[in-house]
């Protein structure tokens, strides 16, 4: 894992998520893809568990930072939890084909988004609830994710290793 490259990628993704993502919004609900979540799924299925845990939590932290106006924490926990779980799952089920990647992104986006909303509620924060927007984001991310995976593969040049060994 090339950590400086990851840091640059993280900054770019956080910046795009914070300001630029609205320009590719679709429908009346202003549905946008979640770039940080796509990156989280990418690192969870391409790296080993140790790296996956770090990248998942760091990307969650970036997602919380990018969502200015709300308290931090929900995305760190949800991204970290699902990134780690996905990394362990990847030891058993290989996620390499494009449809599998798309389905994984869709499911993780739905679950992470719902968990983040739930955690925010538990912590007494108010976030706009909208299953339609969450579903839209999940679908959009699932469609865009496999394309971005190709770009990330080329940028990160992660050597795929046998899972479960460090």
């Amino acid at each position, binding site marked *: 894992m090339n950590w400086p490259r990851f840091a640059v990628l993280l900054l770019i993704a*956080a*910046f795009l998520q*914070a*300001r*630029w993502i609205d*320009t*590719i*919004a*679709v*429908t*009346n609900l202003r549905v946008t893809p979640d770039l940080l979540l796509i990156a989280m799924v990418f690192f969870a299925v391409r790296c080993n*568990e*140790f790296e996956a*845990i*770090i990248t998942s*939590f760091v990307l*969650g932290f970036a997602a*919380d*930072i*990018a969502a*200015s*106006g709300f*308290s*931090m*924490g*929900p995305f*760190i*926990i949800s991204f*970290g*939890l699902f990134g*780690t779980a996905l990394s362990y799952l990847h030891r058993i089920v290989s996620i390499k084909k494009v449809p599998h990647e798309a389905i994984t992104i869709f499911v993780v986006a739905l679950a992470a988004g719902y968990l983040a909303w739930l*955690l925010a509620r538990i*912590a007494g*924060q108010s976030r706009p609830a909208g299953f339609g927007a969450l579903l839209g984001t999940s679908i959009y991310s699932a469609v865009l994710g496999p394309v971005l995976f190709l770009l990330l593969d080329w940028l990160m040049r992660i050597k795929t290793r046998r899972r479960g060994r460090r």
Partner: protein
Amino acid sequence: MARKRIRITSRMLFAWFMLAGLILLFSPLAVTSRLQFAFARFFHRPLSAARHVPLSAKTELPLKDDFSRKESQYQNYIANLEEELRQKNQAIQQLSGVRTRLRGLEGAKLVPADIIISPASGQRSEFIINRGKDDGVCKDMFVIGDNSVIGTISDLYPRTAKVRLFTDSASVAQVNMPDVEINMLMQGNGNNTAKIKMVPAKHQIKIGSPVMLRKKPGYMDSAMIVGEVQQCKRDSKNPALWDITVKPSCDITKLNNVAVIIMNPQSSGNLNRAENTKTSGGK
């Protein structure tokens, strides 16, 4: 020296990160927002630049629909305002015309009003206007229409008022005529005419002579036309007196709007208060 190497396991790392996440989750917003502000400050220039960079994939259609709907709403609102303005201008022109023609109304406030219930046929000749106590209108104020006095305010409500015409059988007004130097009392007949009695036959009354309402300080500072002599004949009971029939100067049935004369606009509130005091005193 041998250094003890700390081995960090995946589980330990996960636990630390989860702990950090939970601490952040339950931290006050004021604390965590500093991190967000730091991010915004760090990326201030690229973030502000990004706002002005359009992408071709941006969907304009929903926004356009929204804008067109809003635009339509605003256009309707503007049309309503323009129509209201036109009506106000019309009212102002009418009232300023009245002022120019009638010197006695200089300094008086004319409250334009629309007739919302037309005069009823029968003995009583009254109608309702869409101005009331809230507009500064008081009881017994004079009402003009087509540059002549047509009646007085008989009943008052917050947003409406009842106007009693001079032709109403319950209406009595002090009038005079230019050629006759005596004060006369005019009483309504109920059939769109009024009667003037008790005028000695020694005075010469001409058919068509104007009948002027006498000035009433506080309510009207100069005489104004109220009607004209329609018929003049000897009183059947006392031939030494005239029985004069007066026809109103304006056709009430064709009247759509009138104006209420408020001679002392500043003290109209005082009049209201005085009236209320009188009423409560009477009780």
